[in-house]
C-alpha cells in the first residue's frame, strides 16, 4: 500500500494549485455567476494547453493517458477553488461516452477538438421519472431508414446550456428500466428540433433542460452498437460520482480551513472564539469528517478504474455515501461557526455550502448509493 502521490503527481498538484490560485480565485467565479455561460472559454483553452483535458484520455485517443487519480488531483483543486469550467460534464461524462462507445472517426471528430480546448460537451441522460437510474430512458429513438427520430426530455444536463456537442441517451428498444435497448447519439448543438433551455443551478453554475421534439439524426451519429450503451452509462455514473467525491473533498478542505481561520481571528467576549471548547470540538468533528471523506475518496479514485464493475460500484457507492454524510456536516457547521456572515452571499463560505449540496445530488444521492451498496454481491 502506498497512499503518497508520486513525485510527478505532487508536481502536478502544486502546479495546478498555484495556477488556479492565480487564474481562478473565488472572485472570478463570483463574477461569472452573472455570465450566461458561467465559465471562461479562454481559460478552458488554457487548461487544454496545460494538458489537463488530455489527462483523462488514453494516448490512443489523443490524450496523455493519465489515471483517474491524476484527474482527482485536478478536481480536488476545482472544488477548493470553486472552479466552474465544465470538466466533469465535458470530459468525464460526454467524453467518456464517446471514448468508450465511439469509433475512431468519432474520436477524431469530437475528442480531438475537446482535448484541444476548442469545444465543450454535455451528456444528456437524466429524466424526470428515473431519478438517478440511467436505464430509466423514456426518450425514444425510432429508426426511420438511415436515420433515427428522437423524442423526449432530459433534465439538468450539466453544461447543456453551452456545450457545442451533446451526447444523448435514447431508447431504441425495450421499456424504461431495461438494461438492453439504450443507445447513445452525438448531436451538434445546432441540430434542428433540439431545444436547449438554460437552467440556473443552486451553486451558481448552469445546466439545461433539453427537449427533443422529433429530432432527426443520421444513423452515423449513433455511438457504438445499437441498444448496448447501458454499461457505458453505468461506468460514467461511477466516474461522475468519484469525481464528485474528489471535488467535494476540495470543498470540505477549503471550508474547514476557512472556518479554522475564522475561529482563530474572530473575537467575541474579549477572546478569540476559537478558545471556546464547544466550538473547538465542532471544528475537530469537521476535521475528522474531512479525513474520513478523504479516505473513501481515495478508495473511489483508485477503484473507479477497476476492471470488475462490481468492485467499482462497491467502492464508489461507499465513497458517495460517505461524501454525503461528511460533506453535509462539514459545510453546515462551517456556516454555523461563521455565524451571521456565514449566511450572507458576500461571504464565500455559503458558496461552498451550496456547491456541496449540488455535489451530493449529482450522480446519485446518499439513499441511491446506500441502496446500491447494499445490493452489491460483496455486501
Amino acid at each position, binding site marked *: 500500500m502506498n497512499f503518497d502521490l508520486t513525485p510527478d503527481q505532487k508536481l502536478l498538484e502544486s502546479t495546478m494549485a498555484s495556477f488556479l490560485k492565480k487564474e481562478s480565485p473565488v472572485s472570478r467565479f463570483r463574477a461569472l455567476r452573472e455570465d450566461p455561460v458561467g465559465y471562461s472559454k479562454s481559460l478552458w483553452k488554457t487548461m487544454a494547453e496545460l494538458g489537463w483535458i488530455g489527462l483523462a484520455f488514453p494516448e490512443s485517443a489523443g490524450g496523455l493517458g493519465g489515471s483517474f487519480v491524476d484527474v482527482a488531483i485536478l478536481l480536488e483543486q476545482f472544488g477548493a477553488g470553486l472552479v466552474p469550467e465544465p470538466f466533469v460534464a465535458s470530459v468525464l461524462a460526454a467524453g467518456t461516452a464517446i471514448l468508450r462507445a465511439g469509433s475512431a472517426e468519432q474520436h477524431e471528430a469530437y475528442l480531438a477538438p475537446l482535448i484541444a480546448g476548442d469545444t465543450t460537451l454535455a451528456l444528456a441522460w437524466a429524466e424526470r421519472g428515473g431519478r*438517478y*437510474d440511467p436505464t430509466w430512458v423514456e426518450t425514444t429513438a425510432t429508426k426511420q431508414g438511415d436515420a433515427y427520430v428522437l423524442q423526449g426530455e432530459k*433534465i*439538468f444536463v450539466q453544461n447543456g446550456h453551452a456545450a457545442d456537442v451533446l451526447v444523448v441517451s435514447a431508447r431504441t428498444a425495450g421499456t424504461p428500466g431495461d438494461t438492453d435497448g439504450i443507445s447513445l447519439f452525438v448531436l451538434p448543438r445546432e441540430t434542428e428540433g433540439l431545444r436547449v433551455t438554460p437552467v440556473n443551478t*443552486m451553486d451558481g453554475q448552469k445546466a439545461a433542460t433539453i427537449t427533443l421534439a422529433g429530432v432527426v439524426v443520421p444513423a452515423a451519429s449513433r455511438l457504438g452498437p445499437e441498444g448496448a450503451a447501458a454499461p457505458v452509462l453505468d461506468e460514467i455514473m461511477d466516474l461522475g460520482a468519484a469525481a464528485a467525491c474528489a471535488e467535494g473533498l476540495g470543498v470540505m478542505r477549503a471550508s474547514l480551513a476557512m472556518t479554522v481561520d475564522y475561529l482563530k481571528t474572530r473575537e*467575541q467576549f474579549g477572546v478569540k472564539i476559537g478558545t471556546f471548547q464547544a466550538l473547538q470540538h465542532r471544528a475537530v468533528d469537521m476535521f475528522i469528517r474531512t479525513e474520513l471523506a478523504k479516505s473513501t475518496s481515495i478508495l473511489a479514485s483508485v477503484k473507479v478504474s477497476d476492471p470488475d464493475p462490481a468492485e467499482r460500484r462497491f467502492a464508489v457507492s461507499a465513497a458517495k455515501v460517505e461524501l454525503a454524510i461528511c460533506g453535509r456536516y462539514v459545510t453546515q457547521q462551517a456556516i454555523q461557526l461563521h455565524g451571521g456572515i456565514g449566511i450572507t452571499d458576500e461571504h464565500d463560505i*455559503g458558496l461552498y455550502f451550496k456547491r456541496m*449540496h449540488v455535489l451530493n*445530488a449529482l450522480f446519485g444521492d446518499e*439513499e441511491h448509493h446506500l441502496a446500491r451498496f447494499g445490493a452489491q454481491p460483496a455486501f
Partner: protein
Amino acid sequence: MDLSFTPEQSAFRDEVRAWIREAMPPRIREKAAVDGHFEHDEIMEWHRILHGKGWVAPHWPAEWGGAKLDVTRRFILTEELELAGAPALSPFGLMMVGPLILQFGSDAQRKRFLPKILAGEEVWCQGYSEPNAGSDLASLKLSAEPDGKGNYVLNGQKTWTTYAQYADWIFVLTRTDKTAKKQSGISFFLVDMKTPGVTARPTLTIAGTPAFCDTFFENVVVPAENLVGPLHGGWTLAKALLGHERTYIAAVGLSTRTLRRVKQIAAATKERGVPLIDVPAWRARIARMEIELWALKMANYRAIASAELGHAPGPESSILKIRGSEIMQQMYELAMDVMGHDALSWHNTPGTIPEAEASVPPQFNYARAASIYGGSNEIQKNVIAKAILGLPS
C-alpha cells in the same frame, strides 16, 4: 391532563381558517399555495388586512389595539397563518420595539409610535448587531453623544439590519458611556431612517434575495425625546426583549406545512416509476422527521398550556428555539433530498421544476440562519447550562 383544544378553541381555529381563505388576496394566495417568496409590498398588504381584522398584534394590550386573545388562541392564530403559508409579518415593530415601547416608553412615545406600527404605516427595523458585536452584543460601539442642544449625535455602524431598505424607523442600541462597564453604558434610541447621515446598504443572503443591510450612521442627530427607558439603561431593554412571547418561536406551523410539502413532493417524485413515498427507506426518513416534529409540537403545546395557566415559563420553553431551528433545517433538507435533481434549480423561470418545489432551495439555504439569529444555538445552550441545569461557570 387534557391534550385537546376546547370546543371554543376549535371553533376559533375554524374561524381563523375560514377568514384566511376569505381575506387572502388572489396574488398572495397563489404564492402561499406554493410557499413562494413574498415581496415587501405584499407583506405590508397582508399586514393591513390582518390589521383590519384586528389580528395584527394579538399579544398587545387591548387598549393599544391588541386582539384580546389568550395565549392559546394567539398560538392557534399564528399556527393557522403559518399553515396557510401567509406572508410572515415583519416582527421588528409588532414583536420587538412595540412591546418595548409599551413596557419602557413614555406615554408620549406610546401615542406617537404604537398606532402607526399597528396600522402598518411605519415600518421598523432592528439595529442591534455590529460587525464586532454579534453573539457578544454588549461590546457594541455605535456612539451617541449629547450635542448640548437636546439632541444626541450617532456615529458608527449596525449590521444584520434586516429589511432596513424598506424601513421608516430603526431602533438602536448605542453606547452613551464609554467609561462604564460593557453593559452599563448602553442606551436605546428610536431613529427616523430619513434623518440625514443614515445610509442602509442592502446585501444578499445565501437565499439569493436581499434581506439584510449594513446601516451606517454619520453624525446622525436624534432628539433626546427618542430615548426609550433611562439613559445608560438600554441593556435592560435588550434583555427584556428575550422574555417576550417565546411560545411560538418553534415555528411548528411552518415546519408542519413543510412536512406536508415533503409528503406531497415525495408522492409526485418517482424513482424508476415508483413514488418515493412508497419506497421504504424514504418513507422511514419522512416518518422519523414527522415524529421529531411531533415531539417539538408537544413541547410547544406544553409551553402554551403552561402560559395559559399563568405559570412561569418551564424548562420546555427553553428548548423551543433550539429544536425549532434544527427541525426547520432538517425538514427543508429532507425536502431537498426528496427532490433529487430538482433541488439543483435556483431562481429559474416557472415551469422549470414543479411549482410546489420551486421555493424550497432558497428556503433550505436561508434556514441555516435559524440557528444563528436571535441568539445562536450555542449561546442558547450556554444559557440553559447555567440557568436551568445550574452548571458552574
